[in-house]
């Protein structure tokens, strides 16, 4: 039961965090130079964005939950099960953002669900 709760927390907080971070990075624009100074500048600019901060807060919560999960279960169980975030992203896209989710993507989501059931049972 506790395992299921923390899996849910990793998935929910992790997906939200990644979307917020993705949004922040898109605002910065394409990185064209990989010199350390240029990368440091990108990181500093990213840290100036509120999207980045809220994203990082969600990711910290997800990371804490991941630590709790890993203290109780094998990494070969925990990591595959967290792929449920793709299911969450598709459902969130469809029902919250009213995006059209293609048939191919639903098929992928179904495979992930089936896989998680097998990993959980195995």
């Amino acid at each position, binding site marked *: 039961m506790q395992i299921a709760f923390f899996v849910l927390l990793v998935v929910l907080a992790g997906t939200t965090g990644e979307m917020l971070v993705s949004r922040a990075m898109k605002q910065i624009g394409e990185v064209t130079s990989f010199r350390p100074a240029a990368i440091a500048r990108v990181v500093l600019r990213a840290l100036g964005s509120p999207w980045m901060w809220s994203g990082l807060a969600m990711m910290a919560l997800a990371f804490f939950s991941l630590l709790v999960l890993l*203290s109780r279960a094998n990494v070969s169980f925990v990591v595959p099960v967290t792929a449920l975030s793709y299911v969450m992203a598709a459902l969130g896209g469809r029902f919250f953002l009213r995006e059209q989710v293609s048939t191919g*993507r639903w098929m992928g*989501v179904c495979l992930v669900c089936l896989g998680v059931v097998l*990993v959980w049972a195995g």
Partner: protein
Amino acid sequence: MPSGPNLRGKTAVLLFLMVFFGAAGDTLLGKGMRVVGPPGAWNPAEVASFLGRAVVSAAVWTGFASLLLFFLSYMLVLTWADFSYVLPASAASYAVVPLLGHFFLGEGVSPLRWCGVALIALGVGLVGQTPPSTSPVAAPAAATAETAQGD
């Protein structure tokens, strides 16, 4: 979307680094947290002690550093590639982590669980194969423009 040999090359390198550091990071965290053990109870003191034990574990630190490198490659690649384009690389790590767990940490993985892992990697890969933007904004506009010109 990545195009041109240069952009394709740097995307491939960064995706490889993502999979490598991500999978290594998760495996090291798993190794460390197994020694640390779960919080004794859900009160602030026990949770603080749990975090304290995690913070002094060398495996947890190396895992955390590896995940930071993963995160850095991920952030860099996201400045030009779409979230959905990056997905197939993540699909690979769902298969790589159980392999590392099995061979480096000696975790027993049942055949049923391997089947589940394969389905998950396949499913995540399939999610990444589909067009990233399913809201048809640009395409119909272009089609309308063409029709208008034809008229």
